[in-house]
């Protein structure tokens, strides 16, 4: 009985501790697929934004703006107009804070948002040559970055993008989906964190 319990604990631990990317099988590279779907671009748009972090809720408006110099700006304001933060990503993906109010000016907050928006804007996939893996009906293109691995996940025949993910040490950290819509004008963007409770939901605003 004690032995069975021990085996059960080991089994639970193995399942729990198993890499979420362990089931991926290395496959020959396919340049055509990423060439067809990349680079990801979001057209300059305003989004109705809803952010939930550890039981706290904040809403506002998020602007994604493509600048003439090919950099991208992500600006979050309140519905009543006050600017909370303005982040910039250069065309090669370099991040900087243009402005941020005191309430958002925390290293952990800024780093988390930087990673989320960089994945959403497809910046880790700018350098082509991701390694290709398959599992079931999904094809993963893994792009190793300094602070984790960014996954670009398509269906089997590379007809459409399924989702984007950040992973690190075999753990899935963040998923970005655009349910029911596609780049460059996704009507909805959902960003979900898997290691702590945080989600961002963006709904494209049709300007009058």
């Amino acid at each position: 009985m004690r032995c069975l319990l021990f085996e059960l604990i080991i089994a639970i631990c193995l399942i729990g501790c198993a890499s979420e990317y362990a089931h991926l099988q290395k496959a020959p590279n396919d340049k055509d697929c990423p060439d067809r779907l990349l680079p990801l671009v979001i057209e300059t748009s305003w989004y109705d934004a809803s952010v939930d972090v550890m039981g706290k809720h904040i809403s506002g408006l998020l602007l994604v703006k493509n600048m003439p110099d090919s950099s991208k700006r992500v600006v979050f304001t309140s519905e009543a107009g006050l600017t909370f933060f303005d982040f910039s990503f250069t065309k090669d993906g370099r991040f900087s804070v243009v402005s941020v109010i005191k309430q958002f000016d925390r290293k952990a907050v800024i780093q988390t948002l930087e990673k989320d928006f960089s994945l959403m804007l497809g910046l880790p996939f700018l350098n082509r040559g991701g390694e290709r893996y398959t599992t079931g009906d999904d094809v993963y293109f893994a792009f190793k970055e300094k602070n984790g691995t960014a996954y670009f996940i398509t269906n089997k025949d590379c007809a459409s993008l399924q989702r984007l993910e950040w992973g690190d040490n075999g753990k899935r950290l963040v998923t970005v989906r655009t349910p029911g819509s596609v780049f460059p004008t996704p009507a909805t963007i959902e960003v979900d964190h898997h290691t702590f409770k945080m989600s961002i939901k963006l709904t494209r605003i049709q300007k009058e």
Partner: protein
Amino acid sequence: MCKEPVIVCDLKKGWLILLVSAVFISATGYSQHQGYRPVGDLGAFERQFAAESSKIASIESTFTQEKVLTALTEKITSTGKFWFKRSNKVRIEYLKPYTYTMIMNGDKMLFRDDQKENMVNVRSNKLFQQINQIMIDCVQGTVLESKDFNVKVFEDEKTYLLEMDPTTRSLREFFSTIVLKVDKKDFAANSIEMNERSGDRTTILFKDKKLNAQFSDAVFAF
């Protein structure tokens, strides 16, 4: 040439731009109000403003809000409905192109978006208390009594323009000035312009104003 890490250099550059913009904005503050001249007898204006605006017990109106991101040459315009009832009840309801409602009633503020609603006790949050008070002061004509602002008053033929410079650190972090335009005919607010330190600005323009209209207190219920 900045020898520090790139992000530090960029931040310094950003702050320098903000600083230069802030200085420029203050230096040009007066000339911004084209067509307006300073009010001669400020004491008389204060007395008249207090007397006339105290006659406004309620306001029901529509509004158009325009948020301008100056450096990005972007703007977003929204429209909605506005209700005020003396002495401390306000409801702002954004209807297009997004829906969002703010209700201020006494010490409580409610924020409702598509997903959730949040109730805040303004007494427990000084910033909310100040923002609540700005809106109330602007629409009920008590802004000249506010300790949160130094107010300069200008006029043209049809309107008074009140330029409000925040005096408290918490408000100065957000706003360089707030400009309130008041109709000389009835002393009701025509527009509120909130200027941020970055140069961004938000203007709320009130339209179809019904002063002292009868409507239920249920408008301000949570």
